[in-house]
């Protein structure tokens, strides 16, 4: 899975990130600040510089949407943002959903690999005292392992939810504008389309990895429902080789289902069959 993240931030990147500072001083410029921040985040996400994208995200104060709506209301008396602004706010929310999901995944990844308790070992020629001590260690290890599993379960659930938030982004999907604009920024629209192709298949693979690793093989197969659905149209952002890769991953989950004596989709098997190893 190609999820390697580029954590470097060059001088050039730093300039782009810090430039946002100049735009957030004046509240009346907040919508311009958001537009710029969105553009910079798009370019960072496109090259997998998620750390840099996150820094940009945090340059915008958390109340920015509120400020933009209020400014507009103050200027025009209307609470409905004009199409460009509405699209920009929606894009900002898309960035937030994605960055949150990736953060959550990184936490999960670290938790999985770095906090797993290590099993105590016992030398072959251990003395009686050592054996007693080992028994104690094993007991504590078991407790720690249970606690670790429990936390992992919770983190898995959270991460899963956040990934679904991106994949099922409401009203038309992630990085898809809702409002028609008179003179569209074709460059921006092109970039957003590319980001969908770049990010969404990878997120589906990530979702599969999480579900498969945590043994939710039946839910793995449901990824097929999600990707094939016309309502969300996710399959359209998959290249042919990516679809093939997805099917291979789903096949792995099917085999795991069979090994649990379930049918390939994870339902109770109608036939009494032995576990199959293909």
């Amino acid at each position, binding site marked *: 899975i190609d999820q390697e993240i580029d954590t470097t931030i060059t001088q050039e990147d730093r300039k782009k990130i810090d430039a946002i500072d100049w735009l957030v001083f004046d509240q009346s410029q907040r919508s311009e600040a958001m537009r710029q921040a969105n553009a910079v985040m798009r370019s960072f996400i496109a090259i997998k510089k998620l750390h840099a994208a996150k820094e940009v995200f945090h340059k915008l104060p958390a109340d920015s949407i509120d400020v933009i709506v209020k400014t507009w209301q103050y200027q025009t008396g209307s609470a409905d943002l004009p199409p460009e602004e509405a699209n920009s706010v929606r894009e900002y929310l898309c960035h937030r959903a994605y960055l949150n999901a990736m953060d959550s995944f990184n936490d999960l990844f670290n938790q999985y690999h770095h906090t797993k308790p290590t099993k105590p070992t016992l030398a072959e020629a251990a003395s009686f005292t050592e054996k007693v001590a080992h028994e104690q260690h094993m007991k504590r290890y078991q407790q720690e392992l249970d606690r670790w599993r429990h936390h992992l379960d919770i983190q898995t659930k959270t991460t899963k939810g956040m990934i679904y938030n991106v994949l099922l982004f409401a009203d038309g999907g992630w990085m898809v504008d809702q409002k028609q604009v008179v003179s569209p920024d074709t460059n921006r629209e092109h970039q957003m389309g590319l980001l969908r192709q770049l990010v969404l298949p990878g997120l589906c693979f990530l979702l599969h990895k999480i579900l498969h690793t945590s043994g939710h093989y039946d839910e793995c*197969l*449901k990824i*097929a*429902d999600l*990707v*094939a*659905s*016309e*309502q969300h149209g996710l*399959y359209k952002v*998959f290249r*042919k080789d990516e*679809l*093939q890769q*997805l*099917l*291979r991953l*789903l*096949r792995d989950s*099917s*085999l795991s289902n*069979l090994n649990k004596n379930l*049918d*390939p*989709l994870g*339902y109770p098997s109608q*036939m009494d069959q032995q576990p*199959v190893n*293909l």
Partner: protein
Amino acid sequence: LGQFLQSKDIKYLSWLHQLQTSDYSQAHESLLELSRMETTSLSKKKTLLSLSKLAGLASDDGEEDVNITGINEELDLITHQEQLPAHVLHQRGLDPDEMEVLSPEQLIELYISDMSSEEQELNFKKALDLLQYIDRNDPNIDVEALRYTIWAKAILRNSWAVDQSGEPIETVKDTVFFKVATLAYDEGIDLREYLPGIELLLRCEDLGLLQDDRNFQYLLRVGYEHIQQTLY
């Protein structure tokens, strides 16, 4: 192994082997066949169709396009079943998470039996939409008759008594019948073909007592005229 997997009992595993050997069009076919045989579990049928669609899209020859249109129709039908109001499912003792596969006729029946939803017109619109999924070659089902039955049942949701204001058009506009027509019109459907013929509709036995109700006949004609003037 491929041959072994073709034998009947083990057919439900063959697609796994076909995916393994990168034979995506065969996997697409196998999964499609399995989905056709699946009647006991709606969600399972959905996943088989989805997998088949993905395998079809992943294959190199473009001959699966026809099938994929068919798969999308099947998935549409499944969505109709998934969208049945919870209280309707509950009444029939159906568990939304473990439903069997219902036929389009059954779905129509369920949609028009729903008495408690707020927007009745949505149910009737869906029932009419579902007509397209019925197999027209099935000698046991008269699709046209069913269409008239749906409209008649929609009519029966209102009393068709003129209210105090005495404005026939206002009474008509308030009916489920009229709201279904408006809904279809808003979706860009040509009402000339969509609406039932008024004479045939009046002869439809499902109307019961309303059939001979002069006042109703008058109001329905007013309604048709109004629709002709405003929605055609």
